[in-house]
C-alpha cells in the first residue's frame, strides 16, 4: 500500500500512531513492511491457507462475535442434505461434472427451498458461470430463500456454522507453516491481534489489491476474508471492512458503468441467449424477489428507457430485444483467441496497452497482427499501436512488417486536465474534474470520440431491422466549445436519471418498473439530485466531520460505509460508544448517525416483514445486508459462485508444491486455454522458482503514463528482478548484472537486484525461492526508458468467476546473463517447453 497507494497509506500511518497494529502479509519486504509492526512473508498463492487458519482459530476457540453472527449472517441456516464438502470429496464440492469441468450448484442450496430452476439456467449454473455471471454480484448476491430453516443454537450438523467448522478444521497453524512459510509465532501474533481487535469496542480492517485477485482462486480469496470479517463482526462498521485498493483512477467506475462484456450498468447481467428470451424470463432468473434486487425490473426498464427513449414501450418489452445476447465467455483473453482465429476483425484499444499490459503478450500481439483494422487512442504511441513496426516478434522472425495486414489508426487523446468528467475512486466516491484547458492539436476526449463516432455511424444506418437499435438510440447531447465537445454533465445527468416530469431523480428508490423513469445506472441515481452535480462538491475536509459527506458523492445514496446498519446492534443501538456510526432514534422514529444509513430510514429495528413481502419490504429491521435476498451476510454461499460455496486451498495453476490437502491440485473450475499460443509450464524441475509480479511507486502499469516522464524514468530507469542473496549465490547472479527469467511463454532479461527483502521460505520441508518482477517496461511506447515485457512471462489461466488472470503466482527459471536474441530466443523456449 505504501508503494502503490502512497497517499492513502498516510491514514494507516496515522492509525498506527494512534495505537493500531499493522501487519503486512506479502512475499516481499516493501516500504509497507518497513512501516508495519510486523511483516509476514508468504508464499505467493497460499493465502487461503492463512485466512482459513484464522477462521479455524476463531471457530475453534469460540472467538466469533456471537451476537453479530447470529443476527446478521447466515451462520444458523440449514443447508441441503445433498451438499458434500471438499473434505468429503477430496477437493471437490458436490455437483461437479468432470465432462464439462463445471459445477451444478443445486446441492449447495439451503434446505428445502422449494422448486429450483433447471441446472442449466440456475444462477451459478454452467451457463451462468460460463458468462462470468458471478461478477454481477459486485452489488449483491443471487437468489436464496428469504426465510430459510435455521438453528439459532448453531449446533445442527448441517447449519452453516458447523459446516464451516468442519470445512476449515484442517487449516491449522502447522499447515500455515508448511504451505505459506509463515512461522507459528508469526501466525499466533497475527491471530491474537486480529481477534483482540474485533468485537464491540474494536474493529479490524483488511486491505488488499491485485495480490489477492490475480489468482485462479481470486474470488475465493476475497470470500475467505469475508467469512473472517463476518465472524468477527467487522463488516458495516467504522474501521472494519475488506478494502479493495484499486489501481487506476476510475477502475471502480469502469466496473460500475462497465465496459465489461458480462454486465450492464449497475451490475445487471448482460442477457444470455439460452437463459433469457424475454424481459420477464430475464427478471425471473436474475436474482431473488426479496431484498433491494427485488426492484431489478425498475432498474433495468429505467436503463432501457435511458438508452432507447420513446422507442422503449411496455408493448415491446422496453426494447429488451435490442440488447445483444451472450453465449458464453466473451472476455478479454477469449477475444484475443478470436483475433488469432480471425473471427474478430476490428479492435478499439482506448487508453490501454495490451501488447505490454496483458498476460501472455505474445498472444496479444499475434492477435493484433491478424486484425483487419485497429484503432488505438492514447497520449503517446504505445506499443499496441506500433507492434507492426518494432514488436518483439519481428526480432524473432515470427512476424514481418510487410506481411501484417492490420490497418492501424492512432488518434491522440485528451489528458485528464483537458476534459471534464468524473472518476470513481476506490471507495466508490465520484469526484468531478473541472477542465483546465482545451486539448492540443488533434487530441480529443473519449467522450468526443464516441459521441462523434456514434453520430457518423448513425448517418450510415439503413431501414434494415439490424440497424434499429442504433437508429433508435438516444444520442442527442448538447455540444460546446471549438471542438463541439459533448456535455459531460448532460451525460452524468442521464446516468443519474429523470422522472416523469423530466426532472433529475434524487434516489434509486424513485425508479419505476413501468417506463415512467429513465436512469443510465441505478446505483449512481442521486449524483445529480436537485439538478446539482453532487460529484463536484468540494467542501474542504477540515470544515467537515471525518466522514466528509460533502466532498464528492459516493454511490449508493452518498453512503460512505456500506451495510452500515450492522454498526448498530439488532435493537438499533451502537455496539459501543467508541464505534457508534449509525443508530435508531426511537423518538424521531428514524435511523440517524454520522453517515447516510444503509437501510430504509423509517423501518424500526423490531420490524418483522409480512409473509410473502417482496423487495425491500421483505427485509426485517435487523437485516443489514439489504442487497441479499435474505438480508444476511453470507458465510456460506448457496448459489452464484462457479467454484464452490466455500473457499478451499488449491495451488496456483503453476506451482512447485503438491497440494497436501486434497487430491485436487489446482482449482478444478479454473479457465485454461489449451492452444499453441498459450503454453503452460510443466510441473517439476524445469521451472523450480515462484514468480510474482508487482508495481513500483514511480511507475504506472504498462508504463504509458510514466515511462515518457523524465522525473519518473530517472527514478526507475530499468527492469529488474528481486532475488534473495541465497538464490543469487545458488545461481551465480551478481547484483547489478543481468539475469534471464524463463517461462514456457517467454524469455525476459532484467537487471539483478540481490536483496534481503526477498526471503527464501521453508515450504513442505524444503526451501522455496521467490522471484519478484515489476512489469512497467516495454520496448517503445515513446518511453524515455525501455525494457523487456514482464507480462509476456504470464500464463493465460483465469479465475472461473470473474476471468481475471493468475498474474501473481506462477513458476519460472532464472539464468545468469542476458537473454538470447532472435531465433536463439525461440530455441531456448523450445528447450524449456519440450526438454
Amino acid at each position, binding site marked *: 500500500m505504501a508503494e*502503490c*497507494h502512497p497517499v492513502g497509506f498516510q491514514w494507516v500511518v496515522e492509525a498506527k500512531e494512534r495505537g493500531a497494529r499493522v501487519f503486512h502479509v506479502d512475499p516481499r519486504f516493501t516500504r509497507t513492511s518497513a512501516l508495519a509492526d510486523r511483516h509476514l512473508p508468504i508464499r505467493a498463492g497460499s493465502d487461503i491457507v492463512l485466512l482459513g487458519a484464522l477462521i479455524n482459530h476463531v471457530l475453534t476457540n469460540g472467538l466469533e462475535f456471537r451476537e453479530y453472527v447470529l443476527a446478521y449472517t447466515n451462520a444458523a441456516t440449514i443447508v441441503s442434505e445433498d451438499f458434500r464438502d471438499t473434505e468429503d470429496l477430496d477437493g471437490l464440492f458436490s455437483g461437479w461434472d468432470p465432462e464439462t469441468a463445471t459445477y451444478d450448484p443445486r446441492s449447495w442450496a439451503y434446505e428445502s427451498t422449494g422448486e429450483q430452476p433447471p441446472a442449466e439456467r440456475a444462477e451459478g449454473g454452467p451457463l451462468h458461470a460460463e458468462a462470468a455471471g458471478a461478477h454481477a454480484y459486485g452489488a449483491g448476491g443471487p437468489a436464496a430463500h428469504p426465510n430459510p430453516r435455521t438453528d439459532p443454537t448453531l449446533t445442527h450438523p448441517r447449519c452453516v456454522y458447523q459446516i464451516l467448522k468442519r470445512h476449515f478444521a484442517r487449516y491449522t497453524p502447522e499447515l500455515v507453516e508448511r504451505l505459506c512459510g509463515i512461522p507459528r509465532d508469526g501466525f499466533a501474533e497475527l491471530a491474537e491481534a486480529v481477534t483482540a481487535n474485533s468485537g464491540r469496542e474494536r474493529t479490524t480492517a483488511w486491505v488488499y489489491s491485485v495480490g489477492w485477485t490475480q489468482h485462479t482462486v481470486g474470488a475465493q480469496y476475497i470470500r475467505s476474508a469475508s467469512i473472517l470479517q463476518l465472524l468477527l463482526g467487522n463488516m458495516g462498521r467504522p474501521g472494519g471492512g475488506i478494502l479493495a*485498493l484499486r*489501481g*487506476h*483512477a476510475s*477502475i471502480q*467506475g*469502469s466496473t460500475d458503468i462497465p*465496459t*465489461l462484456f458480462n454486465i450492464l*450498468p449497475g451490475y445487471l447481467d448482460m442477457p444470455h*441467449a439460452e437463459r433469457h428470451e424475454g424481459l420477464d424470463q430475464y427478471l425471473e432468473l436474475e436474482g431473488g424477489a426479496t431484498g433491494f434486487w427485488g426492484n431489478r425490473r425498475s432498474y433495468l426498464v429505467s436503463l432501457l428507457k435511458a438508452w432507447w427513449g420513446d422507442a422503449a414501450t411496455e408493448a415491446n418489452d422496453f426494447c429488451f430485444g435490442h440488447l*445483444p445476447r*451472450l453465449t458464453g465467455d466473451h472476455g*478479454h483473453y*477469449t477475444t484475443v483467441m*478470436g483475433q488469432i482465429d480471425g*473471427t*474478430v*476483425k*476490428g479492435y*478499439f484499444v*482506448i*487508453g490501454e*496497452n*495490451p501488447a505490454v*499490459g*496483458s498476460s501472455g503478450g505474445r498472444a496479444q500481439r499475434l492477435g493484433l497482427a491478424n486484425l483487419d483494422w485497429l484503432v488505438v487512442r*492514447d497520449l503517446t504511441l504505445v506499443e499496441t499501436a506500433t507492434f507492426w*513496426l518494432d514488436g518483439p516478434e519481428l526480432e524473432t522472425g515470427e512476424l514481418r512488417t*510487410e506481411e501484417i495486414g492490420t*490497418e492501424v*489508426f*492512432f488518434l*491522440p487523446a485528451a*489528458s485528464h486536465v483537458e*476534459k471534464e*468528467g*468524473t472518476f470513481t*475512486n*476506490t471507495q466508490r466516491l465520484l*469526484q468531478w*474534474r473541472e477542465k483546465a*484547458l482545451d486539448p492540443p492539436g488533434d*487530441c480529443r*476526449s*473519449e*467522450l468526443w470520440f464516441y459521441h462523434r463516432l456514434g453520430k457518423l*455511424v448513425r*448517418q450510415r444506418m439503413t431501414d434494415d431491422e*439490424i440497424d434499429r437499435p442504433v437508429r433508435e438510440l438516444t444520442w442527442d447531447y448538447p455540444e460546446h466549445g471549438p471542438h463541439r465537445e459533448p456535455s459531460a454533465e448532460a451525460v*452524468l445527468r*442521464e446516468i443519474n436519471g429523470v422522472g416523469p416530469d423530466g426532472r433529475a431523480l434524487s434516489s434509486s428508490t424513485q425508479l419505476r418498473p413501468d417506463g415512467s423513469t429513465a436512469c443510465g445506472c441505478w446505483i449512481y441515481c442521486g449524483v445529480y439530485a436537485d439538478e446539482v452535480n453532487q460529484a463536484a462538491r468540494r467542501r474542504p*475536509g477540515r470544515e467537515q466531520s471525518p466522514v466528509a459527506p460533502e*466532498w464528492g458523492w459516493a454511490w449508493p445514496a452518498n453512503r460512505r460505509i456500506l451495510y452500515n446498519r450492522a454498526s448498530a446492534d439488532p435493537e438499533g443501538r451502537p455496539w459501543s460508544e467508541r464505534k457508534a456510526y449509525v443508530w435508531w432514534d426511537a423518538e424521531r422514529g428514524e435511523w440517524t448517525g454520522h453517515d447516510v444509513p444503509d437501510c430504509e430510514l423509517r423501518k424500526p429495528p423490531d420490524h418483522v416483514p409480512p409473509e410473502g413481502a417482496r423487495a425491500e419490504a421483505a427485509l426485517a429491521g435487523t437485516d443489514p445486508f439489504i442487497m441479499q435476498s435474505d438480508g444476511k451476510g453470507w458465510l456460506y454461499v448457496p448459489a452464484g459462485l462457479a467454484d464452490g460455496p466455500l473457499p478451499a486451498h488449491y495451488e496456483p495453476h503453476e506451482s512447485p508444491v503438491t497440494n497436501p490437502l486434497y487430491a485436487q491440485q489446482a482449482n478444478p473450475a479454473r479457465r485454461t486455454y489449451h492452444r499453441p499460443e498459450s503454453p503452460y509450464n510443466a510441473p517439476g524441475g524445469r521451472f523450480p522458482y515462484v514468480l510474482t509480479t508487482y508495481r513500483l*511507486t514511480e511507475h504506472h502499469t504498462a508504463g504509458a*503514463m510514466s515511462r515518457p516522464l*523524465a522525473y519518473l524514468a530517472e527514478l526507475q530507469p530499468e527492469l529488474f528482478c528481486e532475488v534473495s542473496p541465497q538464490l543469487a549465490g545458488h545461481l551465480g547472479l551478481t547484483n547489478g548484472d543481468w539475469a534471464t527469467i524463463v517461462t514456457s511463454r517467454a524469455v525476459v532479461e532484467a537487471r539483478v537486484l540481490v536483496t534481503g527483502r526477498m526471503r527464501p521460505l521453508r515450504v513442505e520441508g524444503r526451501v522455496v525461492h521467490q522471484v519478484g518482477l515489476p512489469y512497467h517496461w516495454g520496448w517503445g511506447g515513446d518511453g524515455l526508458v525501455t525494457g523487456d515485457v514482464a507480462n509476456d512471462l504470464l500464463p493465460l489461466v483465469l479465475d472461473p468467476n470473474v476471468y481475471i*488472470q493468475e498474474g501473481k503466482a506462477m513458476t519460472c527459471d532464472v539464468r545468469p546473463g542476458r537473454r538470447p536474441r532472435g531465433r536463439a530466443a525461440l530455441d531456448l523456449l523450445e528447450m524449456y517447453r519440450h526438454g
Partner: protein
Amino acid sequence: MIRQLRGEDGRSDAARSARTDALRPRTEDATTVARSVCPYCAVGCGQLVYVQDGRVTQIEGDPDSPISRGRLCPKGAASKQLVTHPGRRTEVLHRRPYGTTWERLDLDTAMEMIADRVVRTRRETWEQTHEGRVVRRTLGIASLGGATLDDEENYLMKKLYTALGAIQVENQARV
C-alpha cells in the same frame, strides 16, 4: 554564505538573499486554477491545475481534499509532465495494411474512415441467431478500454457498443 560560515543554520534565515526574496511561485500568476483529480491510482487525490497563457504551469495537491490533504505521490507530483512532456502525440497517424511507415491523416477523415469500417465489419459479421437462438450481435468488433476513462466516457462506450451489438467490450478492470 557569510552568515552560514558564521555558524547560522543554513536552512533558515541564513540562506535568504535578495534573489530568494524576489522569487515568486509560478502558481501566483496563474490565470485559472482547475480543481481536478490525480489520474494514476484509485485513491483519488485532489489536484489543483494552474494554467497561464493557455499552458499548464503547475499541478499541485489540493489541501481541501479530505482524502489526500494536499499530498501527492511521485507520480501525482509528476503529472504536469504527463500533460506537457514533449513526447506527447497530438497528430492522427495511419498505417495502411502491409505498410511499413506511419502516414499523417486528417482527424475528420480518420473519423469517417473508422465509421465506415465499423459499419462494414458489423454488417459482414452480423450474427442474428446462434444455435437457433436470437443473439443480434457481432463478434467481429471488440474493444478494450483503460481504467482512466471517465464514467461518462465509459457510459457512452457501453451504450454505443451495445446498440451496435458488439459484446466483446472489455476493460482494465478485468485484467
